[in-house]
């Protein structure tokens, strides 16, 4: 009975009417629901792949997708709206897996090193108010980034999505390093102000 609902969710490219990803994850965890997982995969896998390509993974891009989606499947039961929205949760998994893959590629011998998951934990706050807060924060962030000037967004995107250092961003956009830092700083200040206004 739940399968039917998930199939109808597959054609969800409309942004206004996003599916309830949290409910789909719960079905994955509770019923090994393939249709629910497919819906999540169809939406997120192409985005994770784009992220991987932007980060320079090229031929390994599909490896990152598989690693992240495997982790989503395995940890579906651990997802909670009080942690983050699903896209934020998947972003953090993707970021951590990317770091993990790079670290493993660079490792020359078996050794005890600190785990990526210890360094990049998903911070949690334990109130139920959080879940409401998180969902509204996600919407809020989307509106907030729409308000940022294009040049600041480009710089942010390059840092977040292409893993570029500030120097590389400057070189690529052919602008001075100080300008890149200035744009990033301005965008962060604006976001911080917007966040703080919202919390009060």
């Amino acid at each position, binding site marked *: 009975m739940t399968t039917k609902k998930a199939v109808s969710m597959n054609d969800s490219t409309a*942004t206004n009417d996003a599916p309830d990803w949290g409910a789909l994850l719960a079905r994955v965890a*509770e019923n*090994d629901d*393939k249709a629910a*997982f*497919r819906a999540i995969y*169809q939406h*997120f*896998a*192409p*985005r994770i*792949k*784009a*992220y991987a390509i932007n980060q320079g993974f090229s031929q390994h891009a*599909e490896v990152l*997708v*598989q690693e992240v*989606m*495997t982790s989503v*499947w*395995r940890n*579906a*039961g651990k997802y909670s709206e009080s942690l983050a929205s699903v*896209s*934020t949760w998947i*972003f*953090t998994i*993707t*970021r*951590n897996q*990317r770091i993990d893959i790079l*670290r493993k590629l660079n490792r020359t011998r078996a050794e005890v*090193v*600190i*785990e990526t998951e*210890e*360094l*990049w*934990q*998903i*911070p949690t*706050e*334990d109130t139920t108010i959080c879940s409401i807060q*998180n969902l509204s*924060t*996600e919407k809020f*962030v*989307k509106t907030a*980034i729409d308000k940022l000037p294009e040049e600041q967004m480009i710089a942010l*995107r390059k*840092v*977040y*999505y292409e*893993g*570029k*250092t500030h120097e590389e961003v400057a070189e690529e956009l052919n602008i001075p390093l100080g300008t890149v830092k200035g744009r*990033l700083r301005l965008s962060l*200040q604006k976001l*911080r102000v917007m*966040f703080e206004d919202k919390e009060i």
Partner: protein
Amino acid sequence: MSGYHPDDMTLMNYAAGSCTIPESLAVAMHLCFCHDCRQHVKNLNHLGGALLETIKPASTDDDAFESLMASLEPHAQSEIAQVKMEPTPSEKITQHFTNPLLRYLPTSLADLPWQRQTKEISKYDLTSLINVKGFQVALQKINAGAKVPKHTHKGFEYTVILSGGFSDELGVYHEGDFIARDASHKHSPTALQNEDCICLTVLNAPLKFTGWYRVLNPFMAWS
């Protein structure tokens, strides 16, 4: 609540996953102490999530989903039952952010096999645990009231205070504080009088002692 924090740029690089492993350790350690920075990182993670939504999707291989499905194992029922269990109140409190080093230290901070550097300063080296070329990472213990010889940094140094506190020419720092120093700073930290100061230090180049203490340079690494 600590008074000195990583700047916005450092937090952003952390949330984006574009900082180095040793830097991430210093930030993560600070997050254990600081509610405000945890909240800000959470917001920056949301920013990552929002950017993921707006990214231009790439096409994935046609058979990728089916081959992935074939490799996945069903969720064990016991696992679900465990997840459903409400955390106990004490778990809830400690859950916010765990000390990233906890699993890797043989004992509590006080009982660590500290390596003596001088009569009043000792260290517990973590460089091999972090294992990133060019970085020295360690826990430092300065006895209450003791002074570290004046030094400058070739690269940069991050310090996070885990217990006690110290002061230098620029301020007084307490538990949880995150202090960033670069080559332009010359300082000589002094531990506060009442208790030993233990901190995490992340260094991307060896320290240089100045003045009389420069004779120490080849022998003593503050990290």
